[in-house]
């Protein structure tokens, strides 16, 4: 059986449209209409051109002979000791977005935070970050942030001049409540000091309470754990200890609970030792193709309505019962997974993404049966990421409608957008006497409140977080508040008449009593984390009383129609809280590679049935794929209708339609959300007070409409050179360990038979050109651990001032990302839905030592450095784009317009760049720019520089201390962002460097992309091995030398 690796349906079938599409590197229409009337009547006739030319020459001359502008240099009045203008400071802090927590370090340059790095001292996150944490710095400079406390009258803000005046207004309103209860509605609070403060606040107002509401609820899990383990909590998971991992629809690498933590753990089991190749085994049972599913070794699909049946069947299988599943393939998969789970002796873990407490209870029973409790599941340390229970919110809603709530104070929560019955919430909100929002934007809920006192961004705040019990992470301000905002906790302190009126002081007092001394407090802020001296692992006491009832309730398939809908979170956008972030909107989804929109994902089989698109037929593949206009389908659920474009994702269950939440937000929250998708939360089902992010009976009809979706998957082509990516199964690798090495050996045999040195002998050039006397930078990327999460993409945006181009430009193939993650499917050519593997391959400039781009530049704007860098000099580039045409990896990006406003007035950009790009050139947004990296202007090529500014800074630091550069001292932005350490970087001349070791000691998996074209990349890859028993035929790696000579 032979598998085919493919990126797009066109490539799979080698369709004509696809080939025509990739033949032109830069698709571009000529600027005038070709008609019979001749050039004189074109939009820009020759005479006009000459007039403009003459005028601009004269204008430029006149402008140039004017005096040079006088620039001022204004020093500090009194310079703080630790601040040196031009030198960055780093402060440990914590990214907190609702319940999501990541310990981070903020890079502050000349008083402005400009980059987020992971905090290596945190044992939970171990220096990893997510795309959302990376992008969070941009949220602070969002032009749509609320800038002052205000009264909201008919959706309009009326500024309240001072906080004192505002406090007085609230005090007056509170006095009018006459003892009616106050309710604090928040998203999950992980801050221990805030929890204490909330307790004190509520004590001042009898009858009041705190309700936690999560945009995407984990209520089922909390309740199931309460039933089984007596604690309404979530335990700690140890994916690193699990040899067998079974996920029932939980996207734990992308969006589930704490993906950074889990990705870090997961990657430990995915690293492979060539001499003794073992891997953890990951099964995924799901309805749509999630990012986690894409990383799984074996993946099985089921209908969304069968989620409970699958869980019950797995329980039956591990406990020796009968597996009651009709689908033979699924049944076999469940039996196999169960066998592996049982054999692992406790080193196994089952997780589920369901919000049904019955399903979660069954999962608890499975984990109990396989002995995971106490091994991969730790009840000694519980996770605080999600705390909301659906029923609490339902009760609140009823109370509000009944007029039983006097005041509603809202922090973080946004039910008017995220709640399935948002209309009911809006109606109930109107019945509350006093409504105050602490949210940072005029979001869907805030605009319905009577008052708003905006919160700081976390980079402006004081605070703490307890992601897991006993593990603390601290927040300290890295910049003075940009606007008239305050910590939302300040409001509670002031309004409850607390003696401490500032949360900063409250926080310090809280921690001084816990930590004991100023030194300890200072150390805690410096390190950013306080962790227990010893990590404890303990099992919970399991009570299986409810399991039988749960199996009875969930174990029979729910009533379902032909089509079922699953709502899911996208890796970048999540629940939509950060949807106004342009970096996240433009980050391509790991699986669909689409930006700026949500859509309906369907399987290839469903596309054939529903839309008549047969992807195995070339014409159909072209019609669907090459044209960015996708057919629109109408989805009707419970009387609510949505019309969404279709994206065909192979590996989706045939009856399932996946729709991402987090889109279609109010335009008040940011420029980036304008036109970005539709809100899918209303499709969620609420039954018995429990939210299910699925609908089992949907009516789907095809429409005649078309809608453009900006995908960047087919923008680049390797011209059919699919050996750019290499993968195989573990069984094959064990049987033929030399599988990949043989391909490299063949090159040596054919082209370097005399010396065996392919690098030098295989070239026409003088080998001395390859001398790198000092440092020789190199990168190594392990395809086995890359999960495709996109943290590197956003980190690169932030570090290198990569512009956001907007949907219209992405549609034209003008996306500017320096690093992209290519997604490849592996399947049988005839059946794209039967996906065997998905490979994520980070691709950036390979810094070829024998670079084809350098030879073709007519002005030597791109050339090679003695350190092995392929240098790009913007001020020399004249924009011929020959280099991009000649790049085999398609990593060079051209500035088609003045995206950054580097050399034009804002008004002149209108019409040439998208609205969001224009907004990003606002002075506020521009504060995020890295001053060490040139902002590129129109008409030049740019590409990955290996973060040369970091390399130079690292070398300078070493020189200042008169020592050689240490391995690991300089990290590229993508490397330091990666939660799985898939990217390693360093000096390959240094025999002890990690990069060198990976190359020297992993000869069996190491390869260079397209090594046969002898461009000598400085980036190497490690071939992907998936843990399956399938043994594939290995084509004879060696072709006769004669044949090669032809």
């Amino acid at each position, binding site marked *: 059986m032979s598998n085919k690796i493919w990126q797009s349906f066109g490539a799979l079938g080698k369709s004509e449209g696809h080939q025509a599409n990739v033949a032109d590197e830069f698709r571009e229409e000529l600027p005038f209409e070709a008609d019979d009337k001749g050039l004189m009547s074109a939009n820009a006739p020759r005479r006009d051109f000459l007039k403009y030319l003459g005028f601009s020459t004269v204008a430029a001359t006149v402008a*140039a002979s004017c005096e*040079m502008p*006088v*620039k*001022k*240099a*204004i*020093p*500090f*009045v*009194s*310079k703080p000791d630790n601040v*040196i*203008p*031009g*030198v960055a400071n780093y402060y440990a802090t914590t990214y907190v977005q609702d319940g999501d927590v990541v310990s981070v370090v903020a890079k502050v340059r000349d008083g402005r935070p400009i980059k987020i790095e992971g905090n290596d001292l945190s044992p939970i996150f171990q220096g990893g970050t997510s795309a959302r944490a990376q992008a969070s710095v941009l949220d602070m400079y969002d032009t749509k942030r609320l800038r002052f406390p205000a009264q909201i009258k008919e959706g309009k803000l009326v500024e309240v001049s001072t906080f004192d005046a505002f406090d007085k207004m609230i005090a007056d309103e509170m006095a009018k409540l006459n003892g009616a209860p106050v309710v604090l509605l928040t998203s999950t609070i992980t801050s221990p000091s805030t929890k204490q403060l909330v307790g004190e606040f509520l004590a001042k107002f009898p009858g009041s309470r705190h309700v936690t509401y999560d945009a995407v609820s984990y209520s089922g899990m909390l309740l199931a754990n309460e039933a089984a383990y007596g604690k309404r909590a979530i335990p700690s998971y140890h994916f690193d200890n699990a040899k067998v991992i079974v996920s029932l629809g939980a996207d734990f690498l992308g969006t589930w609970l704490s993906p950074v933590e889990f990705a870090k753990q997961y990657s430990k089991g995915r690293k492979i030792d060539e001499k003794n190749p073992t891997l953890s085994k990951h099964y995924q049972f799901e309805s749509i193709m999630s990012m986690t599913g894409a990383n799984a070794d074996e993946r099985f699909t089921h209908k969304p309505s069968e989620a409970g049946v699958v869980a019950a069947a797995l329980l039956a299988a591990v406990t020796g019962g009968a597996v009651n599943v009709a689908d033979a393939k699924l049944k076999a998969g469940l039996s196999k997974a169960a066998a592996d789970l049982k054999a692992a002796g406790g080193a196994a873990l089952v997780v589920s993404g369901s919000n049904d407490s019955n399903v979660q209870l069954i999962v608890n029973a499975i984990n109990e049966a396989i002995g995971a409790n106490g091994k991969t599941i730790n009840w000694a340390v519980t996770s605080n990421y999600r705390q909301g229970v659906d029923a609490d919110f339902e009760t609140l809603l009823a109370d509000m409608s009944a007029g039983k709530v006097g005041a509603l104070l809202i922090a973080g929560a946004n039910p008017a957008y995220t709640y399935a019955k948002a209309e009911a919430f809006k109606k109930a909100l109107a019945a509350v006497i006093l409504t105050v929002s602490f949210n940072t934007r005029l979001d869907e809920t805030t605009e319905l409140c009577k008052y708003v006192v905006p919160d700081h961004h976390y980079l402006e705040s004081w605070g703490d977080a307890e992601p897991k019990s006993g593990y603390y992470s601290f927040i300290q301000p890295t910049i003075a508040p940009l606007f008239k905002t305050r910590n939302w906790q300040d409001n509670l302190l002031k309004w409850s008449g607390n003696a401490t009126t500032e949360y900063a002081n409250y926080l310090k007092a809280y921690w001084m009593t816990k930590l004991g001394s100023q030194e300890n407090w200072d150390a805690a802020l410096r390190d950013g984390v306080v962790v227990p001296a010893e990590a404890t692992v303990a099992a919970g006491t399991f009570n299986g009383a409810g399991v039988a009832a749960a199996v009875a309730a969930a174990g029979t398939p729910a009533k379902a129609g032909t089509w079922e809908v699953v709502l899911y979170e996208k890796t970048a956008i999540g629940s939509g809280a950060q949807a106004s972030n342009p970096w996240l909107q433009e980050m391509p989804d790991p699986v669909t590679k689409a930006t700026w929109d949500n859509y309906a994902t369907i399987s290839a089989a469903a596309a054939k049935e529903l839309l008549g698109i047969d992807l195995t037929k070339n014409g159909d593949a072209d019609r669907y794929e090459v044209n960015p206009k996708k057919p629109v389908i109408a989805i009707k659920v419970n009387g609510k209708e949505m019309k969404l474009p279709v994206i065909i994702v192979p590996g989706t269950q045939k009856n399932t339609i996946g729709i991402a939440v987090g889109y279609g937000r109010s335009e008040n929250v940011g420029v980036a959300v304008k036109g970005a998708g539709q809100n899918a939360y209303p499709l969620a089902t609420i039954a018995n007070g429990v939210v299910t992010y699925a609908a089992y009976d949907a009516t789907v009809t095809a429409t005649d409409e078309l809608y453009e979706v900006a995908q960047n998957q087919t923008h680049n082509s390797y011209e059919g050179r699919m050996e750019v990516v290499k993968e195989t199964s573990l069984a094959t690798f064990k049987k033929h360990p030399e599988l990949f090495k043989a391909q490299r050996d063949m090159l040596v045999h054919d082209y370097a038979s005399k010396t065996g040195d392919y690098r030098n002998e295989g070239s026409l050039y003088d080998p001395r050109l390859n*001398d790198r*006397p*000092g*440092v020789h930078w190199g990168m190594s990327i392990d395809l086995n651990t890359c999960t495709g999460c996109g943290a590197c993409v956003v980190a690169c945006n932030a570090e290198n001032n990569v512009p956001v181009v907007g949907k219209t430009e992405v549609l034209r193939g003008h996306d500017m990302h320096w690093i992209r993650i290519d997604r490849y499917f592996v399947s049988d050519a005839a059946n794209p839905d039967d996906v065997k593997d998905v490979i994520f391959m980070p691709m950036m400039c390979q810094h070829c030592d024998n670079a084809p781009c350098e030879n073709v530049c007519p002005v030597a704007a791109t*050339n090679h*450095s*003695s*350190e092995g*860098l392929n*240098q*790009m*000099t*913007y*001020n*020399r580039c004249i924009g011929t784009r020959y280099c991009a045409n000649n790049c085999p990896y398609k990593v060079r990006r051209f500035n088609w317009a003045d995206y950054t406003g580097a050399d034009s007035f804002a008004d002149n950009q209108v019409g040439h760049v998208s609205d969001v790009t224009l907004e990003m050139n606002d002075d506020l947004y521009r504060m995020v720019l890295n001053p*060490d*990296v*040139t*902002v590129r202007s129109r008409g030049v090529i740019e590409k990955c*520089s290996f973060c*040369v*500014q970091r390399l*130079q800074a690292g*070398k*300078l630091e*070493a*020189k*200042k*201390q*008169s*020592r*050689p*550069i240490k391995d690991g001292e300089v990290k590229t932005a993508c490397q330091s962002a990666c939660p799985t350490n898939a990217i390693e970087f360093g*000096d390959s*001349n*240094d025999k002890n460097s990690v990069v060198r070791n990976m190359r020297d000691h992993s000869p069996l998996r190491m390869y260079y992309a397209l090594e046969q074209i002898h461009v000598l990349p400085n980036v190497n890859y490690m071939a992907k091995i998936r843990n399956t028993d399938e043994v594939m035929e290995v084509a004879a790696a060696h072709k006769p030398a004669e044949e090669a000579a032809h």
Partner: protein
Amino acid sequence: MSKKRKASLHIITSFLMLFVAGFTQVQAQDGKALFNANCASCHKIDKDLTGPALQGIEDRWPSKDLLKTWIKNWPDAVKTGDAYALKIKDWSPAAMTSFTSLQDADIEAILTYIREWKPATPAPVAGATAAAKSEGDNSLLFGVITLVLALVALILLQVNSNLRKLADERDGLPVEAAVPFYKNKTYLALTTVILFIVAGVYISKGAVGLGRSKDYQPEQPIYYSHKVHAGVNQINCLYCHGGAQEGKHANIPSVNVCMNCHMAINEYKGEPLYTADGKEVNGTNEIKKLYEYAGFTPGQPWDPSKAKPIEWIKIHNLPDHVYFNHAQHVKAGQVACQTCHGEIQNMGEVKQFSDLSMGWCINCHRETKVQFKDNGFYSIYEKFHEDMKNGKMDSVTVEMIGGTECQKCHY
């Protein structure tokens, strides 16, 4: 034999002499460096500054040990109850900094330097003279020669045409009517071509120079004289521009750095000061301007929170696409400030010394040697070290380790 012996004695003596001379010179040098680094920002040898003049200091103190105690940590000296220590404590409201890190030998060297100090004009710095040396200008000579040759060619042409005319006349051929030279097409074409070339040269030269501002010398909000501070008073450049060894910017000192000294120094009593236009400047008035910015009234304690920043005019401007780092040059490269900034210690108002053009940068990178043996960073260049050991090369220039590559300055 005796002759031989005498010679050897002579050699030995001269060696000894050299050694002694060399040794004392080294010590005096050290003293000077230490003095400049530690003392010069507040003390002058012959004049009172923030601190008293230091000439004859050893004679004023009852004992050298007490003086050393004072220098290391003056409150210790006051504690001994010595009369002179008590007296000198109140010399100025500004207290002296403690120098606990100075060793006895260091203090000894500084005192020796003070003892042996003689007033002298500051010597120009070697790097500056080398860079400032103007290239021989032969363009005038070439111009004259060209002009003479052109004239000769013109005369010869004229002669040639006259001769041909005469020959034609003699042969009886019809003679064309004489055309005045300003209507002669040959001349007109020639003139046009010459004008075109000359104008082209000047225009392209001017265009290349656009955006460069060598000799830029703006008037600053306060007449601040580097000559008085760095020249006459020998204050170390890094005292005010400390950023130069830390990072990208050398940084203009903040107001509190100015006030460190100027709380005590409130009048100017040195040589008369002149602006570039030759107008005399009242130094004391300029100090008063500083006080206005600082919100300081002499005789009263200073409240830094009242200060306003001084808006200096930036003189050295690099284009945005150039990355320049002072630390790389000053700390790692050990390049003297004067190499790029000229004889700043002699400038009343600062003037841009170099044109800061790319050619100027590159030339320096081609010629300058890196601190190859002294800086541990370069130990990774094994091949070059080997070559140096084998005598294949004697030094490594910036260019040889990639210092003229694009992405050393443009990224």
